[in-house]
């Protein structure tokens, strides 16, 4: 399971990808992943919002995660 990072999320973590494959227990839902991220990177809580995309679609907290999913952390967007 890999997490893609963009914008300020990439700056907070200092990487553009986080590899979770070697973790003992992978998050099984978006909610669990968010909790894990909040614990590991307190600066995420300072952002205006934080969304998760699963297979390049916005995903609600109850979406179930599979180890082959493409998961991305979406900090507040600011296109245009």
């Amino acid at each position, binding site marked *: 399971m890999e997490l893609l990072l963009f914008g300020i999320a990439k700056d907070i973590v200092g990487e553009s990808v986080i590899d979770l494959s070697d973790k003992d227990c992978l998050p099984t839902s978006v909610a669990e992943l968010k909790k894990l991220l909040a614990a590991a990177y307190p600066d995420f809580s300072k952002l205006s919002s934080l969304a998760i995309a699963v297979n390049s679609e916005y995903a609600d907290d109850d979406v179930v995660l599979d180890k082959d999913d493409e998961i*991305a952390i*979406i900090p507040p967007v600011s*296109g245009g």
Partner: protein
Amino acid sequence: MEHIVVEIVDEIDTSQVFTDLSHAHSGGICIFVGTVREFTQNEEVVSLEFETYEKMALKEMNKIASDATAKWNLNKVVIRHAVGAKQVEEPVVIVGASSAHRDACFEACRYLIDTLKETVPIWKKEIFKNKTVWVSAHP
């Protein structure tokens, strides 16, 4: 939808959009271009830098364009966003719609840019003389 053009590009060619939107059944074309402003809250901007999660951005842009064609009677829709470094006055985004009558293309054009700014995973970093800021990142 053959009449939807959705793209992430390095440089926006503003002259292309009329060709993209031209249609024999259209009497009106409305276009919005977002450009780099020299000042943000009285601070001088040196340049902007855009990055995107391209695969997802294209999906979201396609959704917005499809939603617009469902809401209004449109003949063509364009959503094109640039990435990379952009200087003052350079275009960073261009959206537009063409329709038989002007109400539809005006309303659709506004919808395209407003929704793009809310949902499309593109991030803008403002580069000032002494600092850089990810726009909208913090409350």
